[in-house]
C-alpha cells in the first residue's frame, strides 16, 4: 500500500558532535579547542543514526513470505503441466498477468505507490488459476483475476485490509457467473490436452460411480481443477511451509482433522452412502485450500484459540456442503464463510495477558 515511508527518526540522522562545537573551531583557530570526540574516533565526518530500540531485526519480510509460498506452489504447477498440458500453463500465466495489471491500475488510481513487487498479486493470480478447470475460457480467467484483485483486495485498502481471501473471492465470482464452464472438467491426459470431459472424483462419487483409487488421488491422475489433481504435490510443500512457520500449523491440522473425524463418523454410520474419510481428505481442493488458502495470513485469525475455532468451523462447513449440499465441492465456501467470522474470532479470543489472571500460583 505504501512505499518506503520515512519516519522522523530516520530523517534525523544526527551528527555525533553538535554543530556548535564545530563552529567554534572555525572562528577561533588560535585557541586550541577540546579535541572533538568524533575526530578521536572517526576519520571522516561520520554521521550515525539515532533511532529507538530495537536495533536488530528478524529476517522475515512480507515479500519473503509471499515468494516462499509461490515457490511452494511450483510442484503443483508442474504436476498440472504434466497432466493438463499447455492450456493449464496458459490459464496460470493469464491469471497472474491479469492480477498484476489490475494491481498496477489500482495503484495508479489510488495513488498508493507500486505494490506489485511484494508478490501478493502474483500469489493471488496463481492461486486463482489453480482453482479453475483447465478448459476454462481465457478471458473469463482474466476477468476473475481482476475481480480478485480489485474487489477482493484493493477496495479494502490493499494488502492487509481484506476480509476474504482474494483468490477465492475471484473464484466465487466466476462460479456465480459461469456455472457451466467452471464445472466442465477434462480427464487428465499425460502430456497433452484433448477435450474429453471427465468427472472429478467427488462429482463421480456423489453421482454414484464409486471412489477413485487413492493412488490416483495422490499422484494426480484424476480430473479436476488445475492445482488440485495431485495430493502429494500440495501436501509435501505445504508441510514444508508449516515448518518454516509461513503458514500456521494449527489451520491445516484443525481443518483436515475436523473433516477426517466428521466424515469418519458418517462413514462409520453408513459406509455405502458416505465416502471414506481418506477419500474426503485427498479429493477435491481440500489440501490446496487447507495448506495455501485457509492459511492466508490476512484473512485468518491472529490468536491461537481463534485459529482452532476457524479450522474446526471450516471442517464442519465443508463436510456439510459436500455431503448434504447441492455442490460436490465446498472448500471455497467453507473458507470464505469462516473468513467472514475472523474479525469476530479475533475479538472474542483475545489471549489473557501475562498476570491478568489474578491467582496465586505459589506452591
Amino acid at each position, binding site marked *: 500500500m505504501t512505499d*518506503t515511508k520515512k*519516519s522522523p527518526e530516520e530523517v534525523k540522522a544526527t551528527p555525533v558532535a553538535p554543530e556548535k562545537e564545530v563552529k567554534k573551531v572555525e572562528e577561533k583557530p588560535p585557541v586550541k579547542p577540546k579535541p572533538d570526540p568524533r575526530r578521536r574516533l572517526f576519520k571522516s565526518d561520520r554521521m550515525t543514526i539515532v533511532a529507538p530500540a530495537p536495533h536488530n531485526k528478524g529476517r522475515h519480510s512480507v515479500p519473503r513470505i509471499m515468494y516462499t509460498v509461490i515457490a511452494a506452489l511450483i510442484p503443483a504447477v508442474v504436476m498440472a503441466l504434466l497432466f493438463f498440458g499447455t492450456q493449464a500453463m496458459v490459464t496460470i500465466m493469464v491469471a497472474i498477468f491479469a492480477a498484476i495489471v489490475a494491481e498496477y491500475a489500482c495503484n495508479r488510481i489510488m495513488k498508493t505507490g507500486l505494490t506489485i513487487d511484494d508478490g501478493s498479486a502474483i500469489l493471488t493470480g496463481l492461486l486463482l488459476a489453480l482453482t479453475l478447470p483447465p478448459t476454462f475460457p481465457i478471458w473469463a480467467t482474466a476477468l476473475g483475476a481482476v475481480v480478485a484483485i480489485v474487489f477482493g483486495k484493493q477496495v479494502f485498502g490493499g494488502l*492487509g485490509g481484506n476480509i476474504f481471501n482474494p483468490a477465492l473471492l475471484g473464484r466465487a465470482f466466476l462460479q456465480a457467473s459461469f456455472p457451466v464452464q467452471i464445472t466442465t472438467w477434462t480427464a487428465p491426459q499425460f502430456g497433452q490436452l484433448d477435450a474429453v470431459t471427465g468427472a472429478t472424483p467427488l462429482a463421480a462419487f456423489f453421482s454414484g460411480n464409486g471412489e477413485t483409487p487413492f493412488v490416483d488421488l495422490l499422484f494426480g491422475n484424476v480430473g479436476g481443477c488445475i492445482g488440485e489433481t495431485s495430493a502429494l504435490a500440495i501436501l509435501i510443500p505445504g508441510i514444508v511451509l508449516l515448518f518454516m512457520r509461513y503458514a500456521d500449523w494449527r489451520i491445516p491440522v484443525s481443518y483436515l482433522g475436523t473433516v477426517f473425524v466428521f466424515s469418519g463418523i458418517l462413514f462409520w454410520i453408513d459406509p455405502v452412502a458416505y465416502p471414506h474419510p481418506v477419500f474426503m481428505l485427498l479429493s477435491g481442493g481440500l489440501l490446496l485450500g487447507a495448506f495455501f488458502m485457509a492459511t492466508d495470513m490476512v484473512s485468518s485469525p491472529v490468536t491461537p484459540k481463534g485459529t482452532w475455532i476457524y479450522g474446526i468451523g471450516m471442517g464442519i462447513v465443508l463436510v456439510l456442503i459436500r455431503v448434504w449440499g447441492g455442490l460436490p465441492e465446498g472448500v471455497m465456501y467453507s473458507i470464505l464463510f469462516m473468513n467472514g467470522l475472523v474479525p469476530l474470532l479475533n475479538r472474542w479470543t483475545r489471549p489473557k495477558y501475562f498476570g491478568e489472571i489474578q491467582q496465586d500460583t505459589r506452591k
Partner: protein
Amino acid sequence: MKLSTFKKGLHAEDYKYFSQDKAIETLPLPDDVYIPLQQHIGAPCEVIVAKGDKVKTGQIIANTDAFVAAPIHSTVTGVVKDIQKYYHPLGMRATMIHIKREAEDEWVKLDKIDDWKWAKKEDVIKVIRQAGIVGLGGATFPTHVKLSPPDDKTIDSFILNGVECEPYLTSDDRMMIEQTDKILEGMAIMMHILDVKRGYIGIENNKPEAIAQMKKRVVELGYPFKVVPLKVKYPQGAEKMLIYSVLKRNVPANKLPMDVGVVVNNVGTALAVQQAIIDQKPLVERVVTVTGDGVNEPKNLMARIGTPFANLFEACNGVKDEVHKIFMGGPMMGMTQYHLESPVVKGSSGIVAVTGDLIEEISQFPCIRCGACVDVCPMSLMPLRLSKFSQAREVDKLEDFGAMSCIECGSCSFICPAHIPIVQWIKVGKVRVREAAAKKAKETK
C-alpha cells in the same frame, strides 16, 4: 534434560562471540568524569559539593533524603570543575558534575560492618544505600528498596539474574566466570538480609562456562543455592519472565515480584553488594561490554562511572569508519547514542557499535495480520492491535488490551515481517494512557 523457560518469546542471534572470551580489563583512570545526578529510578539527588571543591574517590557528591533513591559518589580523586548540563546516554541533556582527576585514587570508605552475619540488618541495608547500589542489569532500581520489603509481604525465594538475554552483552557472563566467589557472597548477604532460605541462580544455556563455574563454586563453598540453566530465549532476563522460568509463578499485572514472594537481583548488583560490605567500596565502577562489529577489538572493561564513551572505544582500539549506530545496552532495548562524550552510568551494561547501511527501513509494508507478534509477545498481549489503537489514540481500548503491562522488550518489532515499529507505537500509547489518566484526575479535582 529439558531446560525450563517461559512461554512465548523469541530466539535471536546472540552475537556474544565478539566478547565472550575476553577477560575483564580495567580501564585506565579517565582524566575527566561526568557524573549525572540521576542514575536510578526514583527521586533525583541534590548536589552537595560546589565548584572548585576537592573530592576523593568514593566521596558522596550528591544525595537526597527520599527513600527510593541512591546517593552519587565521586569516582575519581580530583577537583569539581563544573556543574552543568551535559549529554546523558538516555538521550537528553542532564545536569552532571564534571570532575577533573588530579591524582591517583584516594578512597573514602564506607562504614565498616564487622561481620554481616551478626550485624543488625538495618545497618547492612544502610551501608548498601550509602554505597549507592542500584540494579545493575539496566533498570537501576535502588537495591536497598528491594531489600526492605513491607512487613505484610513474605519473601520466600531469591533469584540471582545471570540470564543476560540481550544479544551482544557479555559483562554479566564474564563477571560470573571471574568473580564467582564474590558474587555468591553478595547473594548470601542479600538473602541473609531478606531472611530467605531458597536461592536460585538463573543462567541461560549459552553461557556454559559461567554455569559450570557457578555450579562448582556453589558446591565447594557449601552454599544452599540452586543453579538453574535456562533455555536461550529473549526476553528471559525480564524479571517477570525469569520468575516464571525458574519458579513457574505468575506475577499479576501491575504488581511487583515481591507480591509473589520473590526478589530478583542482577549478578552485577550482587558483586557491588559484596564490595560494599566486605571491601567498604561504594559503587564507583562497573563492567561495560564494548562490542559490535564496528569495534576493532571488542572487550569487557571495568570502567569508572562517568567515563566518556569515547575513552572506552579508544581502549578498544577505536571504531571502524563504517559504524552507523552506537547504542548503550543491548540491541533490543538499548538507547542510541548521539554523542560520544556521554558518560558511563550505573545502568550501562554495554556499548555496542554496529556497521551497516545508513538508511533504515522503518515501515515498508502494511500489517498482514500474520500474528507473529502475538506468538512472540512474552506478556501474551496483541501487539498488532495495541499499535493500531495507539495510532488511533484509543486510550480506553489500550487499557482494556493490557497496554500498561507491556515490558517494552521489542520482540514484536523484531519479528514483524512488515517492519512496523510496533513497540515504539506501544510506548507512545502508554504515554497517551498516562496523559489521559492525569487529565482525568485533574478534571475530577
